[in-house]
């Protein structure tokens, strides 16, 4: 079941992988021959989402919100405008919502029906986010899921789970780590890990991993 990330799967389906490889090559050459697809565009698409669009964008948004109370308020009131103003626009991020973690509330984002994820700020979703285990469990036992990420929340903190069923895309604004008053926006951004913006972890503490 843990198909797209299980190591045993790679062994068990080794022969299938090469069959798939051939099948995909045949399909690509057919689509190029028919003129539907520009092969160079495929390379650019891959490079764009491998190297240009990723969670450093989201980290810049979060760091700016931590450093600038006005920006933070804008982000919470109209996340699309506030995020787009930094140049992080486009596919799978047209309609952004930012939810804020506090001492009372912890937010967690999932897409139970497919794999909706805010590409312009976080890039492509990690394998675990797309896995049936996460998609099925995040809504019914979020605290156990968080525990598997090493995050044990006290009962006093309410967990808010956001299921991305529409074209709205959710970004979690994690709590700013303690002892970071004197850090620059750039230094703050280095503390914003991807999982903290999905809600499965906290921001990285000073001197943390």
């Amino acid at each position, binding site marked *: *079941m843990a198909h797209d990330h299980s190591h045993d799967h790679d062994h068990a389906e080794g022969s299938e992988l090469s069959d798939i490889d051939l099948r995909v090559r*045949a399909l690509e050459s057919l689509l190029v021959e028919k003129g539907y697809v520009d092969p160079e565009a495929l390379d650019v698409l891959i490079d764009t989402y491998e190297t240009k669009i990723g969670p450093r964008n989201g980290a810049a948004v979060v760091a700016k919100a931590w450093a600038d109370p006005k920006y933070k308020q804008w982000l919470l009131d109209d996340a699309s405008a506030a995020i787009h103003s930094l140049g992080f626009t486009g596919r799978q991020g047209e309609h952004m919502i930012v939810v804020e973690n506090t001492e009372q509330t912890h937010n967690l984002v999932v897409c139970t029906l497919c794999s909706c994820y805010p590409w312009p700020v976080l890039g492509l979703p990690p394998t675990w986010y797309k896995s049936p*285990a996460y998609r099925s469990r995040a809504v019914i036992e979020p605290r156990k899921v968080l525990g598997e990420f090493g995050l044990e929340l006290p009962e006093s903190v309410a967990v808010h789970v956001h299921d991305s069923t529409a074209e*709205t895309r959710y970004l979690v604004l994690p709590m700013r780590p303690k002892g970071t008053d004197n850090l620059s926006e750039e230094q703050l951004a280095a503390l914003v890990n991807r999982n903290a913006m999905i809600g499965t972890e906290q921001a990285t503490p000073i001197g943390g991993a």
Partner: protein
Amino acid sequence: MNSGHDLGGMMGFGPIENDSSDPNFHANWEQRVFALTLAVGATGSWSIDTSRHARESLPPHHYLSSSYYRIWLDGLEKLMLNAELVNEQEVAAGKQLIPAKPVKNILTADNVMPAMMAGSPYDRVHQAEQQFAVGDTVTAKNMHPQTHTRIPRYVRGKTGVVDKIHGCHVFPDSNAQGLGEDPQWLYRVKFTASDIWGEEHSSKDMLFVDLWEPYLV
């Protein structure tokens, strides 16, 4: 439709494998399937809702035992066959056998970045006044369409509170079938975990689900 994609609350999938060194793609073919899906999608031959339906209407045993990009590959082939961009003989042969169908757009390398950065907004001018306001109590309908829908099974029949109004958005149930965008008001509805999953669950933890007006009473 009630199929293998609607996973909320299912059990038995085991622990979450959170490997921070995990790459975006695990093989070259996964990269190509990702890029092909976006590039052929850019021809404008179908909507995102139709493409979701192509994937989720794969037989549940197949969907649940396939890797992520295998599902994309099967979905893409189905979409292209349905849209008559290719036929089955061509897919089997990997060669063109019939003339190409005219399409709205071809994504060129130069245009990838502008097209991705532009995206395609889904909010629309409203056709009618909204029926619900923030704070209203609403119940998700007990409905089981055979066609594409974005109301997860776990909220059907459950009662929650309107928490936010997102505006008027393309209605996937209609758009996926090629019946037009039929824009509808979209609400974020807040449900209490114990109302959804039973009293042994927290009455403090909340679930927020984005639901279109036709899903609600």
